[in-house]
């Protein structure tokens, strides 16, 4: 095992010396042909023989107590195999590595809480039977209206401790230029297109689950804990995952319920959550109420900044949306107050959705910066420049790499940002009001412990193995590129095996840490292989030259197949966070630039063009990295304009729990998006030098759209999304 925890900065020589030149290229995804032909198999597919279908029964009310469950009518339906309830292992919600939910409880936490499973010969029968199960309940005092609940100002949940530096109140009182605004964002659903699904089967006391999950190593342990069996009796498989966006980081109740059902009926069982049930059984991003305060001198230099929010969680939830996470290191200012308060509600759990914190926190802070710029009469880019910190303004730590100023400069140049931004509401083309806006983008960078195994096979090809997932992020391809770069192989000579918890433990996909962590483990494993190849070449590792399957040293050139000599060379690599990770403040950075047109008659907003420049450390694959960023930008557009989960405060139901009513972006909403990278390899981040990409694109994207809408119309909306009704009253006369 070649292990490098990040106690010191790291720059593997093998990557610098490589002649292959394949890492970073915008290669096509290696699993592409499988995806475009439908051959790629997801959790509900590749079904074992004798499969039975399950459907989950949820509570019909959102608070109170369960008195009894009558399953007779369901059991009597032809084709029903079993109706299961009252099993002590049945979870009331999602499990994850930090916390397990309540099990077999009669307490109702929210509407649609799972209470029974129906297993049948066919999907239609299971669904029909589930509707026949009668759940008797006793009413409780409901808390469905988040705005009507008491606020806990010292919540004991969440991972982000409050920050209170200096005296913000005093600075606000003493400073000439101040801004104090409140912004709100609604419930957001992760809404991966692949349903949350699990196929489960037992062979003796061993359980296998094919499950739609981002972190299957963690899932394996969590499932074992929930079922009270040994983790080595559980195998989790996820060769393809149809999107996760945070919703598939934990283990959904359906995975545990499928395992229980498979054990009870003695057959493989599969469950896919119907779309409308997904909103109740999968966590969402909490609504947020954000108060942003900024105190600045007359030149716009920030002296104090506050970002204080209220978010919601149910009684079983441990997650607290870390709203100010991205604000912490964003701008200078000595007085700083960042905290997030809590209201407890009887609603489905809130949890981590793509870029927890930054995705919504940037709506507050980046719109506030736009408002401050206008108040001061300073260009919004110039205002940000003046507030670029030299070190982390909360911790005082040095930044590992930070190219934010370059993102502003290059973005402004490429976008054609004018020397003087037109006055709000002043540019009109026929019935369209046209405006521009920008916002900064920041997402904290993490390195997580990860292992990988690399085998140099007898035929000179390589195989990379780890329990990472590829949730659309490009993992298959970047791991092949990394191994190809280190070993001098084209990616067509590298096989990548992922999505099997029997393989070496990786970080999984979440928090944008998957790529940097997993690729680093591959680099380290390859270093060991290079050491062995050097021995066989009778040369030092640094004298090896590898290209297209040939190794050269000291004037001698040998094919890898000849050098391997029949027995594969197998090596393990491992990386993880260390002292260097703690010594430095690490984040990916960027800047978004947007042009919108708002219809003066209808209030409809069309994003005409959008461009961003991003600092993400080493770019591992230019094509897939660009796609991840543009995907995030599109989320930002939809967060700004249409995504809004609405709670019926009378019942605790979601009014719009499906794609018909919860409006994710469609093709016609998204123009051609332009992405540029500033590539500075971050040797403090991880051995491969890559920072997170997957969540960066959404950070700040929606705020840039909202700022452009303000510039187009002169109407400042602080209650997101910016829908037509909120603009119409303020629009200039037609």
């Amino acid at each position, binding site marked *: 095992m070649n292990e490098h925890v990040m106690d010191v900065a790291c720059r593997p020589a093998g990557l610098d010396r490589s002649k292959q030149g394949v890492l970073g290229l915008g290669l096509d995804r290696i699993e*592409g042909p499988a995806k*475009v032909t439908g051959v790629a198999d997801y959790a509900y597919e590749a079904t074992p023989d004798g499969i039975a279908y399950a459907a989950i029964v949820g509570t019909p009310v959102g608070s109170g107590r369960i008195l009894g469950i009558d399953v007779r009518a369901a059991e009597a339906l032809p084709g029903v195999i079993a109706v299961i309830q009252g099993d002590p292992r049945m979870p009331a919600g999602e499990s994850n590595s930090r916390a397990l939910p309540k099990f077999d409880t009669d307490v109702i936490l929210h509407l649609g809480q799972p209470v029974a499973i129906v297993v049948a010969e066919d999907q*239609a029968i299971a669904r029909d039977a589930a509707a026949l199960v009668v759940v008797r309940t006793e009413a409780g005092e409901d808390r469905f209206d988040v705005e009507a609940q008491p606020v806990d100002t010292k919540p004991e949940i969440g991972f982000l401790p409050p920050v209170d530096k200096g005296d913000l109140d005093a600075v606000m009182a003493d400073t000439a230029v101040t801004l104090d605004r409140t912004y709100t964002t609604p419930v957001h659903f992760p809404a991966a297109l692949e349903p949350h699904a699990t196929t489960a089967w037992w062979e003796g006391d061993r359980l296998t689950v094919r499950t739609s999950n981002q972190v299957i190593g963690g899932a394996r342990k969590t499932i074992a804990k929930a079922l009270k069996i040994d983790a080595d009796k559980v195998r989790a498989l996820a060769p393809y995952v149809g999107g996760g966006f945070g919703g598939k980081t934990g283990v959904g109740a359906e995975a545990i319920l499928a395992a229980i059902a498979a054990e009870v009926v003695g057959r493989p069982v599969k469950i896919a959550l119907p779309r409308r049930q997904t909103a109740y059984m999968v966590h969402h991003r909490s609504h947020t109420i954000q108060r942003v305060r900024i105190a600045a001198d007359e030149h716009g230099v920030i002296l104090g900044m506050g970002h204080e929010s209220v978010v919601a969680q149910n009684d079983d939830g441990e997650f607290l949306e870390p709203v100010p996470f991205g604000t912490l290191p964003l701008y200078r200012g000595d007085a700083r107050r960042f905290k997030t308060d809590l209201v407890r509600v009887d609603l489905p759990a809130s949890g981590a959705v793509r870029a927890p914190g930054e995705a919504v926190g940037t709506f507050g802070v980046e719109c506030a910066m736009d408002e401050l710029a206008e108040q001061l009469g300073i260009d919004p880019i110039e205002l940000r420049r003046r507030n670029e910190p030299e070190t982390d303004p909360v911790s005082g730590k040095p930044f590992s790499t930070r190219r934010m100023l370059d993102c502003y400069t290059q973005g402004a140049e490429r976008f054609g940002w004018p020397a003087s931004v037109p006055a709000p509401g002043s540019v009109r083309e026929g019935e369209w009001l046209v405006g521009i806006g920008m916002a900064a983008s920041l997402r904290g960078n993490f390195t997580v412990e990860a292992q990988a195994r690399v085998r140099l096979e007898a035929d000179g090809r390589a195989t990379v193995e780890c329990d990472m997932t590829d949730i659309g992020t490009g993992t298959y391809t970047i791991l092949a590129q990394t191994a190809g770069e280190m070993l001098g192989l084209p990616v067509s000579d590298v096989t990548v095996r992922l999505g099997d918890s029997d393989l070496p433990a990786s970080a999984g996909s979440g928090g944008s840490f998957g790529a940097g962590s997993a690729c680093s483990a591959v680099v380290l494993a390859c270093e060991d292989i290079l050491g062995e190849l050097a021995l066989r070449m009778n040369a030092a590792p640094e004298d090896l030259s590898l290209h297209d399957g040939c190794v050269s040293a000291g004037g001698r050139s040998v094919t890898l197949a000849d050098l391997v000599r029949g027995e594969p060379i197998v090596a393990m690599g491992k990386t993880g966070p260390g002292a260097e990770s703690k010594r430095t403040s690490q984040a990916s950075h960027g800047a978004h630039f947007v042009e919108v047109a708002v219809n003066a008659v209808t209030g409809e907003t069309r994003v005409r063009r959008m461009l961003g420049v991003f600092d993400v450390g080493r770019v591992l694959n230019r094509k897939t990295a660009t796609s991840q960023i543009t995907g995030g930008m599109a989320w930002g557009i939809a967060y700004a304009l249409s995504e809004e989960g609405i709670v019926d405060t009378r019942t605790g139901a979601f009014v719009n729990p499906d794609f018909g009513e919860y409006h994710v972006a469609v*093709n016609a909403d998204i123009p*051609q998006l332009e992405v540029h990278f500033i590539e500075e390899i971050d040797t403090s981040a991880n051995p491969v030098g890559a920072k997170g990409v997957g969540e960066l694109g959404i950070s700040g994207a929606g705020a840039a759209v909202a700022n452009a809408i303000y510039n187009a119309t002169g109407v400042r909306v602080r209650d997101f999304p910016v829908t037509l009704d909120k603009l119409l009253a303020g629009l200039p006369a037609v």
Partner: protein
Amino acid sequence: MHFTINGQSYDAEPDIRTSVLDLCREHLGLTGSKKGCDHGQCGACTVLINGRRVNSCLTLAVMHQDDEITTIEGIGQPGNLHALQDAFVRHDGYQCGYCTPGQICSAVGMLDEVKKGWASHASGDLTDPKFDDAEISERMSGNLCRCAAYPNIVDAIREVGGAEPAGRTADEKDAAMEANARGELVA
């Protein structure tokens, strides 16, 4: 019941409530067509029935015993990709891949609709619609992609369908990105 799918004959006895989608996925082992919502809201299940694109979750199998059904498995296979499948790979017109079979079936049907001169909401002239990016985006808006690969999906379809690009072409974008990489790499 008897079905013709991708030119092959299949016999099956599904529950009468079974959709074409569930027939394919759960009875015939054709899992290329995806179920995203089962409500006709996402388009992941799009197949061609007698050449027209259809949300296969919204139509019952029993209604289609005399029809020609084409699923993604019939469009092209690994090693024998349809031009659109190849273009989706090169333009990265997907990420997680779950909506992709539906996107591609939809694009095949859509290009045929354009060829026949059918107008869309985006058509300026209903009797002679142009084929441009706005038309592609409008006509593909029944197929959701949560990863939001939309710009690349448009690039792929434009290339195969021969539409005029809006703004920069994909090649120009690639060239700009490569120049960006050369100029800004801090080694």
